[in-house]
């Protein structure tokens, strides 16, 4: 718990408490100016490889074992440490810059200053807990604060959380209840709230007024750091969490670190290298010992008292120093560099650019690019991933009558999603704001905003003519005809529910992002209004069971209110055309979910328009009745346990308390089971239910998302009773959520079913092609969705996951035993099918309940065995937890590489569990993106990401790693062979600088380029032939056998490179360096040309780097051999290479060696 009081308090003790909280200054940097070197060094020393090399460097200072001059052996480790440190420094500097920017933001917001008794400008970093902060519209909130005042008369304020979670719809926040007007200097209340945590959706606490009265605080009162104030002139709040304790910062975990499969493989081979090194050193040590023992007294031996055995022991360590390059020191750094470059290329791929969202692919995990090339299982969410998650109202059924909306259906087929122009993402992400800016510019505090969920398709709904006809009768004089009226009441109520049962925020272009907060729309004329009102009244009264006369007075009052409001703003509204038509009064709806927006737009197409919303009332225009103000009593928001939401309103016409509920069909159908009272309508309701259910089934088969709409009329007393308990729930400090849930459930009973809607959520473009390509690539695609089985199967068919030739296996069962039996039976069926070869494959459809059983310990084996044989698996009705369980099961049990892709919060756990998590930055906020490794904007991007970039990244990296091992083994063996001719004494035939630089400089750039740019197959071919992807899945490029084959090749090449110069110089007067010179040169040429043979593409960059490396080597040795007079003892190179390079024999040896060394590889390659 933390206690917060006003920072203006005089109380010493409380001031101390406030000071103990962290300030708003954010530092995400790891290092400070002074601590950089020690801290970075310390961190780097945590890596095993670095420790190893420092150990070697230290070993070289021990006189009995030193192999080179001590300073030379420091160079490699120094170089590696420096490169890493520079990389870290650069990253930290970027963080520092971003921090500085954020901390220094001189928000136009004003902070209350004690001395000056007024609000003054302050930097973000100077905000402290307990400060009062005043912000105006479009400003970014600097710290988590409690809303104390809003310029809005209703005490609400709207914030946009796009920076936090990417959701652009406005969220409403409320001033703390019953707050006495005592902001700032007179604020003596005490706030008790939770300790800082990362739960964005929860905030608990209470405020204790000076009068000792307590009022509960909850999430609705909290303004979160990095959100933006919208539609509210001024707000004032008191800071409760600042800086690193804000929820935004607590949620920011920084880039993800995963270890790729290839890296695990690599580590094994590094261990093999260590084994090889030890064997070589042992050989040398034993050899040296034996050699010494057989020698008696020789003039070339330095008199020594050490025994041969001890000398052998010393030599072991000397050899470890000499042969240290066998362990590729620069490999890890090189891999990091290569991966960064690979990510650079992935991010710059124009094919991943989405013009409409102006977004590229985001690579959040930096070190698993090559895993993209080895994926075997893809787990996909459905909504928003395979489909657009742009809901379009498609058809509906009202009172048991189906309205097919033929024209609408035609249209949505033609319409392509690419025509949508939805800007979803504000350009400030949580990342940039909280400091971990990776590639974006620092945010500007105010940003152009776009509304969500208002694509043209959603708006342009062509009403069903039949339904329009029926509705028109409402405004026609013939309205009073009785026969159709009962149905008509349903229709009106239905659209009413669509229009108001939501949390949609309305704004209009004329008043940007400002809620049409008052009832401002015109009423055409008083007379026509009252006429329509009367007709409506008679109609409505028939529907309700309430008493006719009791609301007369209310109506007048309301009329008065409406007209009064109208008169104030009459000028702009006079020329208003009929609502629903595009024109001057283009309303913009901002909804939390796309379904809501779709339904509001649908209602609007029937001229049942939601025109405005305030805290307490809604303005709705009904056909033929003009604008009506609906008093909003309660909103019972949607939650996933109830799967429905309700609004409680006072009906404008009947003045009754009416509950409108909309929600998942299963839930609503259950709740509408026993319609209350109304005996005469019992039969009718039953009929409606029956018909609606039939239509719902049809919709599901069509792949539509279904929602049911119901209503309930409450008696006044009934409402009063409920209200009391609800008020108690609302004000309670503990268990508020539970109590509210319970309260909502109490209300939503005995509903009258009005009808149902079918919303189409079209497939994204190229989804079938992508899925087909993935399947051809040997990737198994599983769809995990929360949708109904029928919808899921339908979508699976639509996206070609399910082919017509496939045999569909459905697993639905109610008990564990049944499940077990079913699994066995299905497996038998699959086995029969496989034997018969009749069908092309099996697709398993499992529902959530069955999945629960199947995931249990004793059945999961059976389940896996079954699903492994199926070409595709569809899990429907699955919960987020089940999704992650499925992924985990497959990943761990089958030991395969898994990829999970999803767009919503419900996919987060699955994304985190999978080896590679991909988030789709779509309609449902950024949570999936935030937890993903890669974020793309369309599902179709997956195809290129895996088939092309994945393949490339994997083969490139695998080849580069192999090449690194090859290079080191090849070179080190040259030194090893020499030991046989120098009494295993640890001598080298090369200048020690050249030796050290050989790996670090002369041959380090080409493999990097190889790892970054090589293309074994062109992008087009990879797309055209997805089968090529299988090579990566089976780790073809980097099998243990490939590794050992490469080692063998390296061994052969080193033998050639050593022994041809050896025989050419045997018995001659060549000195050590003269002997080593052609060996080095031919090794270099061999290593470089080996790469030319290995790489599949050569660009001018390759040529540049290869030729550059060779020239660098030759010029370095040449210059060194001219200028180095007494340097680098004992291997002083003076004159050696200069002389060598002037002799034809040198070139003769080099040419022969290179050709012979490369011959096997050359033959093998072709």
């Amino acid at each position: 718990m933390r206690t917060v009081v006003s920072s203006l308090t005089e109380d010493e003790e409380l001031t101390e408490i406030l000071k103990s909280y962290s300030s708003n200054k954010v530092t995400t940097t790891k290092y400070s100016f002074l601590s950089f070197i020690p801290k970075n060094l310390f961190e780097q020393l945590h890596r095993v490889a670095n420790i190893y090399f420092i150990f070697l460097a230290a070993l070289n200072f021990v006189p009995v074992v030193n192999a080179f001059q001590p300073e030379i052996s420091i160079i490699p480790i120094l170089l590696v440490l420096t490169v890493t440190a520079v990389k870290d420094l650069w990253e930290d500097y970027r963080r520092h810059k971003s921090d500085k920017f954020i901390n220094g933001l001189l928000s136009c917001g004003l902070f209350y200053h004690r001395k000056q008794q007024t609000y003054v400008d302050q930097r973000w970093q100077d905000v402290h807990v307990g400060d009062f902060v005043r912000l105006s519209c479009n400003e970014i909130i600097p710290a988590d604060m409690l809303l104390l005042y809003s310029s809005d008369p209703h005490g609400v304020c709207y914030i946009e959380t796009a920076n936090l979670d990417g959701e652009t719809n406005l969220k409403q926040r409320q001033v703390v209840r019953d707050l006495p007007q005592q902001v700032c200097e007179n604020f003596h209340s005490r706030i008790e709230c939770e300790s800082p945590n990362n739960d964005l959706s929860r905030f608990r606490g209470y405020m204790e007024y000076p009068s000792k009265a307590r009022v509960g605080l909850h999430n609705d009162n909290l303004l979160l750091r990095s959100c933006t104030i919208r539609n509210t002139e001024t707000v004032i709040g008191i800071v409760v969490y600042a800086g690193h304790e804000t929820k935004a910062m607590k949620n920011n975990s920084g880039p993800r670190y995963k270890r790729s499969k290839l890296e695990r493989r690599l580590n094994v081979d590094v261990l093999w290298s260590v084994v090889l090194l030890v064997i070589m050193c042992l050989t040398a040590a034993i050899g040296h010992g034996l050699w010494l023992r057989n020698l008696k007294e020789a003039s070339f031996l330095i008199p020594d008292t050490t025994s041969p055995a001890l000398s052998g022991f010393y030599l072991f360590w000397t050899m470890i120093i000499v042969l240290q390059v066998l362990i590729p020191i620069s490999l890890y750094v090189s891999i990091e560099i290569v991966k960064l470059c690979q990510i650079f290329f992935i991010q710059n791929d124009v094919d991943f650019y989405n013009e409409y969202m102006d977004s590229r692919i985001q690579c959040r995990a930096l070190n698993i690019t090559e895993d993209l090339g080895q994926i075997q299982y893809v787990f996909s969410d459905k909504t928003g991933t395979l489909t657009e998650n742009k809901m379009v109202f498609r058809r509906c059924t009202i009172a048991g009558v189906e309205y097919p909306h033929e024209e609408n259906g035609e249209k949505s087929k033609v319409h392509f999603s690419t025509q949508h122009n939805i800007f979803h993402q504000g350009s400030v992400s949580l990342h940039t704001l909280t400091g971990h800016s990776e590639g974006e510019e620092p945010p500007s505090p105010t940003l152009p905003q776009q509304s969500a969920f208002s694509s043209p398709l959603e708006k342009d709904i062509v009403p069903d003519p039949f339904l329009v006809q029926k509705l028109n009768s409402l405004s026609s004089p013939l309205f009073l005809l009785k026969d159709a009226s009962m149905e008509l009441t349903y229709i009106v109520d239905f659209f009413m529910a669509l229009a108001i049962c939501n949390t949609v925020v309305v704004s209009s272009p004329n008043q940007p992002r400002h809620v049409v907060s008052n009832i401002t729309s015109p009423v055409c004329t008083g007379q026509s209004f009252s006429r329509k009102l009367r007709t409506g009244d008679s109609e409505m009264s028939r529907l309700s069971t309430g008493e006719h006369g009791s609301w007369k007075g209310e109506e007048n009052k309301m009329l008065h209110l409406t007209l009064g409001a109208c008169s104030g703003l009459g000028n702009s509204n006079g020329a208003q055309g009929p609502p629903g038509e595009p024109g001057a009064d283009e309303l913009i709806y901002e909804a939390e979910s796309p379904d809501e927006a779709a339904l509001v737009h649908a209602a609007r197409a029937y001229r049942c328009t939601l025109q405005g919303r305030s805290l307490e009332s809604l303005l709705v225009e009904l056909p033929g009745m003009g604008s009506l103000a609906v008093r909003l009593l309660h909103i019972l928001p949607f939650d996933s346990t109830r799967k429905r939401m309700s609004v409680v309103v006072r009906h404008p016409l009947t003045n009754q308390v009416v509950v409108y509920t909309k929600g998942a069909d299963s839930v609503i159908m259950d709740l509408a089971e026993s319609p209350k009272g109304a005996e005469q309508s019992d039969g009718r309701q039953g009929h409606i239910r029956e018909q609606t259910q039939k239509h719902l089934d049809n919709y599901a088969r069509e792949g539509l998302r279904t929602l049911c709409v119901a209503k309930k009329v409450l008696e006044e007393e009934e409402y009063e009773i409920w209200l009391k308990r609800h008020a108690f729930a609302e004000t309670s400090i503990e268990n508020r959520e539970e109590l509210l849930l319970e309260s909502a459930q109490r209300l939503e009973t005995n509903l009258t079913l009005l009808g149902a809607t079918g919303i189409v959520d079209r497939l994204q473009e190229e989804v079938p092609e992508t899925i087909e390509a993935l399947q051809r690539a040997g990737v198994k695609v599983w769809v995990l969705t929360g949708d109904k089985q029928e919808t899921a199967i339908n979508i699976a068919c639509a996206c070609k996951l399910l082919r017509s030739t496939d045999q569909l296996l459905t697993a639905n069962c109610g008990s564990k035993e049944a499940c077990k039996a079913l699994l066995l039976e299905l497996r038998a069926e699959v086995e029969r099918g496989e034997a018969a070869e009749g069908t092309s494959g099996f697709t398993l459809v499992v529902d959530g309940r069955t999945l629960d059983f199947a995931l249990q310990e004793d059945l999961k084996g059976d389940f896996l065995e079954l699903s492994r044989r199926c070409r595709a698996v569809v899990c429907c009705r699955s919960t987020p937890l089940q999704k992650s369980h499925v992924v985990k099961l497959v990943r761990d049990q089958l030991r395969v590489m898994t990829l999970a892709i999803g767009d919503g919060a419900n996919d987060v756990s699955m994304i985190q569990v999978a080896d590679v998590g991909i988030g789709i930055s779509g309609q449902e906020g950024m949570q999936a993106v935030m937890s993903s490794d890669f974020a793309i904007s369309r599902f179709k991007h997956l195809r290129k990401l895996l088939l092309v970039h994945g393949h490339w990244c994997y083969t490139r990296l695998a080849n580069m790693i192999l090449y690194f091992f090859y290079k080191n083994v090849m070179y080190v063996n040259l030194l090893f062979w020499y030991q046989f001719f120098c009494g295993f004494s640890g001598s080298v035939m090369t200048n020690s600088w050249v030796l050290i630089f050989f790996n670090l400089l002369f041959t380090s750039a080409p493999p990097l380029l190889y790892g970054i740019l090589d293309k074994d197959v062109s992008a087009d071919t990879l797309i055209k032939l997805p089968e090529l992807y299988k090579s990566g899945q089976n780790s073809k490029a980097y099998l243990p056998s490939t590794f050992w084959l490469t080692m063998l090749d390296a061994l052969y090449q080193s033998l050639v490179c050593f022994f041809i110069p050896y025989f050419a110089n045997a018995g001659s007067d060549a000195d050590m360096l003269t002997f080593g010179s052609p060996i080095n040169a031919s090794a270099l040429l061999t290593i470089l040309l080996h790469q030319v043979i290995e790489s599949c593409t050569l660009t001018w960059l390759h040529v540049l780097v290869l030729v550059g490396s060779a020239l660098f080597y030759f010029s370095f040795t040449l210059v060194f051999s001219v200028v180095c007079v007494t340097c680098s003892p004992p291997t002083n190179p003076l004159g050696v290479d200069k002389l060598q390079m002037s002799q034809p024999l040198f070139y003769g040896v080099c040419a022969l060696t290179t050709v012979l060394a490369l011959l096997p590889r050359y033959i093998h390659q072709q």
Partner: protein
Amino acid sequence: MMAPSYNAKEEDGHQPGATGHGGAGTMTNKKPDNTAFKQQRLPAWQPILTAGTVLPAFFVIGLIFIPIGVGLFVTSNNIKEFEIDYTGVDMSSPCYNCSQSYSWNNTQSCTCSVHFSLDQPFESNVFMYYGLSNFYQNHRRYVKSRDDSQLNGDKTSLQSPSKECEPYRSSDKPIAPCGAIANSLFNDTLELYYIDPNGSRTAIPLVKKGIAWWTDKHVKFRNPSGNNNLTVVFQGTSKPVNWRKPVFELDPLDSDNNGFINEDFIVWMRTAALPTFRKLYCIIQKKPNNMTPTLPRGEYILEVTYNYPVRSFDGRKRMILSTISWMGGKNPFLGIAYITVGSVCFCLGLVLLSIHYRYGKRNNSAEISS
């Protein structure tokens, strides 16, 4: 043109008010550049190794290597080389006695004469080498045991040699030249006599200069400066333990070949790569005036002042006479290797060619065109 596009944006939920507030034009397009580099479409040469490219390569290598090999082989064969072991391991060998009484500290020098005959005359300059076997001049600790600064004439190093020279760093005074390499300087003296058919001995002039590398002689090795009298310069230093005379008496007659720049010394200091090696001892220059060969056919005597002990480590000492060519000394290996590799390539080319003709069509169609 601007207006329609702007409107289009507006219609799709883009709000002009907000745009104005946020400062229009700050929207940067995140679209990646469509450049060949960033899109990984750099024009590339693909070294696809097809029969069409591989076969010619094999033939070309074969055709180039075989003539080179033949050339090298012929050149190598034209080089005349004569080698004689004078270690004196056998009882019968003339130096047996000398080799038995070896010690570094012998003040008495032992001489022996080795007779040999040349079957062929040696034309042009003849190089005389001494060869040692089983002598590990490349031993790590041996190689290290020297001070290049001292040898370069550095005065400080002269007085306090590098620690690497231990235990040959100083006796009572600092040793110059210090270290094990210098200490073990080869100190046999070889003289060559031609025995005329009439029986008289003619000493063959051995030129002891010009046997070291130019850079070594003029750059790397230098006597300490300051005084032309080397005795003065090397005052305060002592001779290496195994030496019989101090460094400034290596060639007292020729000041250009004395001290550190004595060429025998320089040659020795360039440590051999392999345990069996030869080092240039002197040059027998061809006679400028007449057409007779430098070393005509016939009998010769090698007079050895036997000082250098090698028996303790089973070493061998040899004397080698050789002419040289552009490719250095006699070495048939390289020529043979070239011919072999060239032939192998050529044969491989033939084999592949036949394979290509038999299966070529099938391979080509199966290949993935990329």
